[in-house]
């Protein structure tokens, strides 16, 4: 390429990038018309039940990808005048690594149960002042006061769910009923699993009758041998979007979590979610406040506002997980408010409630909850779990 042409090319690139950045500057269509605060999708924001007294002008969230309804965030910004900055992560470990490195300025994070106890031990979280969270009363007590945070001193629930078996009833003739069934040769090469070492080793331990959080090296060794038999039958390990390969027909069954299974079923009705006889893996995502949160007052305001039933119902529409907030279910039941569903069709809140309650995926049956197992931090044994994972995947 001679110099002259190179310069022309560079000039073209610069012009193109300028044009693109100019396009990026468009503002949002949000407006507040008189008294009413309306989001860009046309939702009329309810007033805060707890008066917002925060003096901070900003709130820094560090949350899971695709886990906060956009309307919810926008309404909070409109009613409080606080600007919300949102960073996202796709694994607890990512969030933990960033927080434990120090110097981050997040006000709220969304750790899953097993990493909460570790974060508390490491002094990464600050105690929550329950006096500032009157809307905590909205939660179903079944989702409070877990062993990972007794008395909810550091966390409040967000959403819950399970990791369990999923299969396409149109393709799978003999559906699996237990984790152990997944070892059957007829399923070989047709399965998608979460790329989650703790969950997959955990379910293997369950088939052997051991605890999902065992630290016993001989039990883990046994699980390794058993899991090594299964791994060649697994076509895909995917923790980002396991539903994609199920919907596309690349696989016929496997393990996935609540929200993915529900959305897959919306696309392909024959996709079915079952709770294995050994018990599913159960989890809960929570809100927590890092030790050095610079805008704690805004964080309390955000928590209170988003805990309101007339805001948090959006979860039923946007993110089909297990609802921890009882007030939302009471609010939604029989409520004829017009809303649009996942596919943008007009429906009512009452219909969303009925779909939620009728689906065993989201509304986990009581027996399944009682039978389920919760992953916990295993401390010293974690490198053993990792080595097992490396070995079963590296041993081919």
């Amino acid at each position, binding site marked *: *390429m001679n110099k002259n042409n190179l310069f022309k090319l560079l000039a073209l690139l610069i012009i193109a990038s300028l044009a693109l950045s100019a396009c990026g500057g468009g503002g949002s269509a949000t407006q507040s018309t008189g008294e009413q605060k309306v989001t860009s999708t046309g939702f009329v924001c309810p007033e805060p039940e707890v008066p917002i007294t925060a003096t901070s002008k900003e709130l820094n969230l560090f949350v899971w990808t695709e886990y906060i309804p956009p309307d919810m965030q926008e309404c909070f910004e409109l009613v409080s005048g606080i600007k919300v900055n949102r960073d996202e992560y796709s694994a607890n470990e990512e969030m*933990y*690594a960033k927080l434990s490195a120090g110097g981050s300025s997040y006000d709220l994070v969304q750790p899953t149960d097993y990493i909460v106890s*570790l974060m508390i031990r490491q002094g990464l979280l600050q105690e929550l002042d329950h006096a500032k969270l009157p809307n905590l009363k909205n939660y179903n007590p079944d989702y409070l006061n877990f062993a990972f945070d007794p008395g909810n001193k550091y966390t409040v629930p967000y959403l819950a769910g399970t990791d369990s078996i999923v299969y396409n009833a149109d393709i799978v003739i003999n559906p699996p009923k237990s984790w152990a069934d997944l070892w059957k040769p007829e399923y070989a090469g047709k399965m998608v699993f979460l790329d989650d070492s703790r969950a997959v080793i955990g379910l293997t331990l369950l088939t052997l009758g051991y605890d999902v959080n065992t630290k016993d*090296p001989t039990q883990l060794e046994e699980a390794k041998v058993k899991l090594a038999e299964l791994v060649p039958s697994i076509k895909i390990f*995917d923790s980002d979007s396991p539903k994609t390969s199920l919907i596309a027909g*690349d696989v016929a069954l496997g393990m996935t979590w609540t929200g993915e299974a529900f959305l897959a079923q919306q696309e392909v009705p024959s996709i079915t979610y079952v709770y294995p006889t050994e018990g599913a893996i159960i989890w809960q995502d929570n809100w927590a406040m890092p030790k050095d949160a610079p805008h704690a007052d805004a964080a309390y305001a955000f928590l209170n506002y988003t805990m309101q039933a007339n805001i948090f119902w959006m979860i039923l529409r946007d993110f089909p997980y297990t609802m921890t907030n009882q007030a939302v279910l009471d609010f939604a039941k029989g409520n004829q408010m017009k809303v649009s569903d996942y596919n943008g069709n007009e429906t009512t809140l009452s219909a969303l409630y009925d779909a939620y309650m009728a689906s065993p995926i989201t509304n986990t049956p009581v027996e399944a909850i009682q039978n389920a197992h919760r992953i916990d931090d295993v401390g*010293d044994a974690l*490198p053993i779990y*990792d080595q097992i994972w490396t070995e079963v995947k590296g041993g081919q």
Partner: protein
Amino acid sequence: MLKRLRESKSAQGTLLALPTTVWLFVLLIIPLILTAVVSFGKRSPDGNVIYTFTLDNYIRLFGYSTNCASGQAACFDPLYVNILLRSLSLAFNTTVLVISLAYPLAYFIARSHPKQRNTYLFMVLIPLWTNFVIRVYAWMMLLRKEGAINIIIGWVMNLLHIPFTPLEMLYTPGAVLVGMVYEFLPFMILPIYTSLEKIDLSLYEAAADLGANSIKTFLRVTLPLSMPGVVAGTILVFIPVMGTFIVSDILGGRQVILVGNLIQRQFLDARDPTFGSAASLILMVMTLIVTYFYTRKFGFGEEIVVA
């Protein structure tokens, strides 16, 4: 002082090199030293680094194990060595394939009319404007069971009345290789093109005058003179491929662990930065050794600078 600076050439040189030196020191040398220090440490139960001096991480990496099946006190466990070898062989295969595809294309571009050359080069560069990961995802759409390639083959077969079951292409080692070759092809084409384009055409006339046929001309003139480009391309391809794992994760279905996955897992899932640091250093050393012997044999690719 200013006067001395104006007079002294070497002082000017030092001053000009200063920003880069500081930059490299802060962002390369210091992190490297920290990595080395951490790699000799121990993991605490919660996954923090206990600073001490132990070779445990390196011993584990090279397969010394006290957990033997046959009841011996110690044995060799090739787990991590195998992962390193697998990454090495994937990098090797990718590089060889990339060279064999890039060379003819670069040759074609270099021999085409000067007016068209820039258009061709432009076409080689255009895909790089799109994010690396998005391009890998595009391959998913092509390769999957109900993807574009299977649909087209199925359509043709249907016309010919041949029964056809969709091919299983995605989530296979072949898909990983295709993705890798695709991603790194431009980095080989450009340096080879540069060195081919520089060859003086009178050399071909001389070869013809001396009675060489086209094969002999290629082997004795073109190939040796384009070797710097091949070497430069190899360095640009081989080193990043060694540490890459995104392509194998997306197109291979995460069935295998490469050294890149291994290192990433240590810092996230396993929370063992000490072992992760040791693995990073070993990867770096291994890449340096391979590159060293390669460049000693073929000379250092000066085309990197030109490309």
